[in-house]
């Protein structure tokens, strides 16, 4: 089998560099520049994979990204493995290992092949009609369905490669480096426009670069050699960037495009080391020129899927570009002149062409004359009615076409071949255009969809715009570009192009066979095994919309997104339903154009860069002192500081006791801080908070509660009056950004008349809170020059002072119920001050505590935490904080909502305290609360929002919201857990020091 089908040298392949690779475990050789497909073909290998549904043997059909069949798993069982890689796209490199997919035990003998024999009972949508009995069995059926579906295998290990993003802004983006794209890039760049040219192939030049036909001449050079010179020229252009191996994945609105630049997939393991594998280019272009060319269409006839059946244009590319013969006995099957070009190319390379089957009555073009001259037999107005050969085509049968093309006549002749090139005409690649929101128009003459209405500054040129012959391509491209780039002359204006081909083609979407349709397999979607009869079945069952047919038959849903077959599907629907293609419309082409690795989309935002981490000025100290950390929003907050191998519970019990018995220290730097200045500052606060601010004295602090307009608690914190027109507001850690945005919103859009300025100073300050009976002694050691007496610095007041000549602010506020001092100092001095306080506090066993202990301490005092004890469904009244709602205030954010019929009800859920009958029993946060265990359905009155074991009260305490709880003090309720139910009593939420004596202890 392993013979060499290399023809004499191709300049696009480096025949001096042999590359060794493995396919299904066997060693093969190719040359640098080969794709896996060309290398396999050179080794006379066509059978590459098995189809999705029937597991039919499939080979290489194309030479590009539209390949439906030849998809493989590469580097299986390594961290570098990748499923569903197109053999026609991947370039071989030393050490590449590829294996066939969707077959077991092997591609040559695949058990799944049995599906092919069951196919009569597996028509489109068969699974909707069966597997329903017995009901309970679906999961079992599904188990087998899932295993037989799928193609390649997902990687099993994390990806060692690195991906990156890059934002690119250019004046002109040219997509596609074929002849028209190259001309466009040159014209654009020469006019001083920042131009980017991208092409998915390793080199630009498109199909012209290997077009050596004497029929196509530009300025008396063969089109290929003319283009070579052009490429040499544009490589020198200043404003032009050329990116090869770069494919546009998506074309979004406002000319925003995503492209994948493939940097290392063609390199061997050690060549790729430490290199970025792929880069996602986020391109914003003022203008986009699409020159994506066109895709050759297959022909739809009985058994048109056997290995060895390929696109005629692919045969030509393998011969002219890769120097590979796809077969030794070639036959071409066509409805237009393309196949004749291929025949001539093959013949020049000394590759044997046995015959051409042409469904047209005649073609008297130069090309066909030459083919006849060569002596290749041409069967006119004939069609292939069947093909033979299981794992490789051996033979075809041919019959005469009736004049209407709907049936066959005459007697059947057989022609042997090991490769059948099919040419069904061309489909412009309008995928990107439609992705961008462009509207298509159907061209009856050529039976193609063409760009009509452009949604942004973009244009299509070349064959993706419906120009298929060299002269038309060049002339139209120039005409279009002049208008699009608003220029009156180009360097190509007196270019001389010669040669055109006979265009007459005969388009038959579904070619007839001598067998009835039901007995044939004319594939429309190769990968998903959707045949013409599946499409007809869908129509028969009432699926009329193209989207319905597509979904019911899975046509166009494969990894090739139906690039080859979609037009035939439409054609067959139109013919069968008797409607015009133009009325049918296309299905939407969804991004990406070719599949895009998750890793590429994500770029560097993985691992340490997955999400931002924010650190406080004292973070290093916490780390050094073995703190455990809690994620609070994007912040890393000290959670608790275990001594040795203390558990969290032990640590928290110790920390909380210390804070109440002597002194504790907390890093509160993450709380949001907003500087508020302006002559209307106090009026502004009045409108924001539920309570009143006008009368707050300078130097005093006040707790505030902020609502949403719908009356629910939104945020809280202490705000301090630094001066008549100057306040500093603290917000919750998580709320900070939203609160600032909300305040700015009100200021700018609702109350622009207010003279108020907001500035975030959250990061400017390190905030250190020292609390406990000994806090005063410690602070006075640290700030000897500050008078800490009750009259000078009473609870809820502040003083500006300095420590070692550094200005700072000391606030007497408490979230623990203990006497406590919150020192705000410029962030870069924070860690130093913290250490100083620790030093001064040593004699009092000052104990650092984290968020967990803070939560416990505030719960002992019944202070809420917005977001833990509230959930956006609680009003201040519900929280029993009526005292903070300024009834007399005319208005504040959310006030009106408090008086709606359902928000004034007093049987709403209300915040209460809970005590367990068994003081050792600590409730689970989130546990539900009921009054009657036997009532069915059981009625839930509320849930536990916070729960701790209090070392200071030596009992378990909890906060909860309970329907009507306000009036249930002393009442016993139940907490039904999985295995038991716990008895609790409703109490006042303040568990410790109701009189607030400790504040001034």
């Amino acid at each position, binding site marked *: 089998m392993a013979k060499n089908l290399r023809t004499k040298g191709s300049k696009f392949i480096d025949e001096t560099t042999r590359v060794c690779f493995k396919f299904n475990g066997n060693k093969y050789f190719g040359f640098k520049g080969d794709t896996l497909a060309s290398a396999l073909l050179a080794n006379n290998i066509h059978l590459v994979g098995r189809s999705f549904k029937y597991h039919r043997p499939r080979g290489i059909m194309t030479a590009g990204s539209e390949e439906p069949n030849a998809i493989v798993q590469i580097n299986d069982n390594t961290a570098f493995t990748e499923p569903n890689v197109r053999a026609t796209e991947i370039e071989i490199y030393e050490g590449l290992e590829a294996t066939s997919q969707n077959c077991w035990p092997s591609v040559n003998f695949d058990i799944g092949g049995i599906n092919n024999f069951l196919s009569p009972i597996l028509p489109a949508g068969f699974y909707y009609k*069966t597997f329903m009995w017995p009901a309970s069995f*679906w999961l079992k059926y*599904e188990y087998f369905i899932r295993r037989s579906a799928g193609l390649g295998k997902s990687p099993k290990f994390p990806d060692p490669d690195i991906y990156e993003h890059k934002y690119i802004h250019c004046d002109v983006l040219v997509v596609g480096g074929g002849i028209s794209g190259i001309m466009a890039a040159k014209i654009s760049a020469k006019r001083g426009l920042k131009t980017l040219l991208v092409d998915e192939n390793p080199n630009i030049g498109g199909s012209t670069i290997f077009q050596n036909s004497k029929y196509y001449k530009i300025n008396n050079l063969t089109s290929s050699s003319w283009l070579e010179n052009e490429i040499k020229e544009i490589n020198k252009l200043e404003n032009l960037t050329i990116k090869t191996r770069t494919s546009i994945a998506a074309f979004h609105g406002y000319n925003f495009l995503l492209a994948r630049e493939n940097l290392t997939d063609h390199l061997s393991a050690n060549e790729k080391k430490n290199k970025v594998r792929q880069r996602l280019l986020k391109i914003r272009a003022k203008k986009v020129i699409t020159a994506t060319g066109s895709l050759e269409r297959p022909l739809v006839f009985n058994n048109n899927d056997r290995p060895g059946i390929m696109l005629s244009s692919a045969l030509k590319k393998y011969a002219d570009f890769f120097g590979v013969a796809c077969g030794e006995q070639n036959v071409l099957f066509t409805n237009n002149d393309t196949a004749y070009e291929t025949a001539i190319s093959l013949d020049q390379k000394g590759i044997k062409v046995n015959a051409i089957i042409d469904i047209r009555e005649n073609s008297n073009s130069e090309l066909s004359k030459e083919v006849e001259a060569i002596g290749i037999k041409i069967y006119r107005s004939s069609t292939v009615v069947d093909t033979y050969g299981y794992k490789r085509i051996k033979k075809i049968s041919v019959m005469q076409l009736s004049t209407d093309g709907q049936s066959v006549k005459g007697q059947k002749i057989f022609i042997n071949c090991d490769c059948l090139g099919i040419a069904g005409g061309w489909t412009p690649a309008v995928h990107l255009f439609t992705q961008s929101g462009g509207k298509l128009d159907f061209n009856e003459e050529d039976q193609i969809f063409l760009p009509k209405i452009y949604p942004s500054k973009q244009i299509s040129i070349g064959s993706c715009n419906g120009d298929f012959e060299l002269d038309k391509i060049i002339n139209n491209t120039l005409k279009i570009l002049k208008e699009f780039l608003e220029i009156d002359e180009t360097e190509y204006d007196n270019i001389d192009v010669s040669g055109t081909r006979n265009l007459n083609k005969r388009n038959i979407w579904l070619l007839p066979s001598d067998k009835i349709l039901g007995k044939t397999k004319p594939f429309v979607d190769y990968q998903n095994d959707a045949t013409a009869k599946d499409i007809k079945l869908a129509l028969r069952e009432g699926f009329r919309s193209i989207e319905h047919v597509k979904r019911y038959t899975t046509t166009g*849903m494969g990894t090739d997104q139906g690039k080859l077959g979609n037009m035939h599907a439409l054609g067959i629907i139109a013919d069968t339903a008797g409607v015009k293609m133009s009325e049918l419309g296309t299905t939407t082409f969804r991004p990406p154009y070719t*599949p895009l690795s*998750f890793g590429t989309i994500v770029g560097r935002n993985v691992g340490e860069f997955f*999400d931002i981490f924010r650190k406080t000025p004292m973070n290093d100290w916490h780390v050094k002192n073995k703190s455990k950390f809690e994620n609070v929003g994007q912040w890393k907050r000290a959670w608790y500081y275990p001594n040795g191998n203390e558990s969290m519970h032990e640590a928290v019990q110790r920390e909380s006791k210390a804070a109440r018995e002597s002194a504790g220290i907390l890093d509160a730097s993450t709380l949001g801080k907003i500087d508020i200045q302006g002559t209307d500052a106090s009026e502004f606060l009045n409108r924001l908070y539920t309570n009143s601010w006008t009368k707050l004295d300078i130097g005093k602090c006040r707790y505030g509660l902020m609502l949403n307009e719908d009356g629910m608690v939104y945020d809280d914190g202490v705000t301090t009056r630094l001066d008549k027109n100057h306040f500093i507001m603290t917000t919750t850690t998580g709320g900070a950004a939203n609160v600032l945005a909300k305040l700015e919103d009100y200021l700018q859009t609702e109350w622009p008349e207010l003279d108020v300025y907001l500035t975030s100073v959250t990061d400017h300050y390190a905030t250190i809170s020292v609390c406990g009976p000994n806090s005063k002694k410690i602070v006075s050691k640290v700030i000897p020059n500050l008078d800490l007496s009750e009259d000078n610095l009473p609870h809820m007041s502040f003083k500006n002072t300095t420590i070692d000549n550094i200005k700072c602010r000391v606030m007497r506020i408490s979230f623990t119920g203990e006497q406590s001092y919150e020192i705000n100092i410029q962030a870069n001095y924070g860690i130093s001050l913290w250490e100083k306080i620790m030093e001064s506090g040593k004699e009092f066993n000052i104990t650092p505590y984290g968020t967990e202990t803070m*939560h416990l301490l505030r719960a002992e005092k019944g202070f809420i935490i917005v977001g833990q004890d509230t*959930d956006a469904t609680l009003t201040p009244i519900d929280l029993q904080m009526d005292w903070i709602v300024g009834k007399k205030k005319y208005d504040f954010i959310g006030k009106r909502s408090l008086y709606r019929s359902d928000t004034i009800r007093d049987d709403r859920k209300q915040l209460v305290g809970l005590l367990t009958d068994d003081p050792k029993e600590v409730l689970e946060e*989130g546990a539900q609360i009921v009054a009657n265990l036997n009532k069915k359905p059981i009625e839930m009155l509320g849930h536990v929002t916070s729960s701790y074991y209090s070392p200071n009260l030596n009992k378990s305490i909890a906060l909860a919201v309970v329907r009507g709880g306000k009036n249930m003090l002393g009442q016993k309720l139940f907490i039904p857990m999985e295995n038991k139910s716990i008895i609790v009593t409703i109490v006042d939420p303040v568990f410790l020091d109701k009189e607030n004596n400790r504040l001034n202890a």
Partner: protein
Amino acid sequence: MKNKYSIFSLVKNAFSYHENWEKAWKDPTPKKEYDAVIIGGGGHGLATAYYLAKKHGMKNIAVVEKGWIGGGNTGRNTTIIRSNYLWDASAGLYDHALKIWENLSQELNYNVMFSQRGVMNLAHNLQDVRDLKRRTHANRLNGIDSIYLTTEEVKKFCPIINTSQEIRYPVLGGTLQKRAGTARHDAVAWGYARGADEMGVDIIQNCEVKGIKRTFDSVEGIETTKGFIKTKKIGVVAAGHSSVIASMVGLRLPLESKPLQALVSEPVKPIIDTVVMSNAVHAYISQSDKGELVIGAGTDDYISYTQKGSHDIVEGTLNAILELYPIFSRMRMLRQWGGIVDICPDASPIISKTSIKGLYFNCGWGTGGFKATPGSGDLFAHTIANDEPHKLNAAFNLNRFVSGDLVDEHGAAAVAH
């Protein structure tokens, strides 16, 4: 009865090369008048018609669809079905739907492939843990089979999740509802259509509603691209386009229609056997029977009817996916698309009468409508037939936005001090 679907009918039809299958639904031209017209031929609309005919004996009804049935969010969602909702009202609604799902294929004689492979919700911070525990306790007491899992149990149930405690937002636990899972979205629309059609419901596609004819206090019919249709009862199930229909009678709804995106990978052999949802890092993932990883992204923050969203959303979702499933880095996105979801301020739906007699709305399903399809149709049918809500959808009335009795399913921002 049109030919019943079964393995036997498949074999039988194989002999006639499947040339004798009947239409799954007819393609009638609209009658002059119907007893009720459903606007919107998505899953919810078709289900509504099906149950109106089946349970309430209303046979002379039509479903009018602007495009093709099931072409909206029904055919664009990530097919997740679960009922582990926090509030009693929601739990009742979604579990009612889940119970119907469990026997739907048999009821419709159409395999909707309801696959009870379980749905896991992950917790990534301490507030997540509290919220999920709260929900699990509520579910248990509401008779919903939801359990809380430790990180180890999460790992055991879905081994490919990265449960390392070193990652940015480590998995701290999760919940599992075993009865939850996925279904084949298209099949739901097609199955209901076939069922409704068989009971005489007219399914009229490519028929856009242009106006609603009304007297001062009640409806009289609809103007469509296929002419005027007289009717006294109109059920609007137009999802993203609800506000557009409402504006035809001068109503404003508490809705915003925003882009919601989803994507699938190329198909691979089975690798993830359940549904995993993670709100905190925002990533939903499951694997379809075809082998594609089905991934749900979030909504954009602006109104759009384009069925396109911004790339940042997709990128953000895949960030989260790779954080939780690093092995998927080399998997490739095959298709990406968007839907238009109509979102209520409290993230709960509206199944309600309106101030206009004979006009009913079923909307506001936001990102979670698919799972409710059968229940929604059943309850909406009940509401239309009796001009009175069923007790299970009573809470989802329009008046809650006036009285303030919202069914808030976002919960809190879930960020503590």
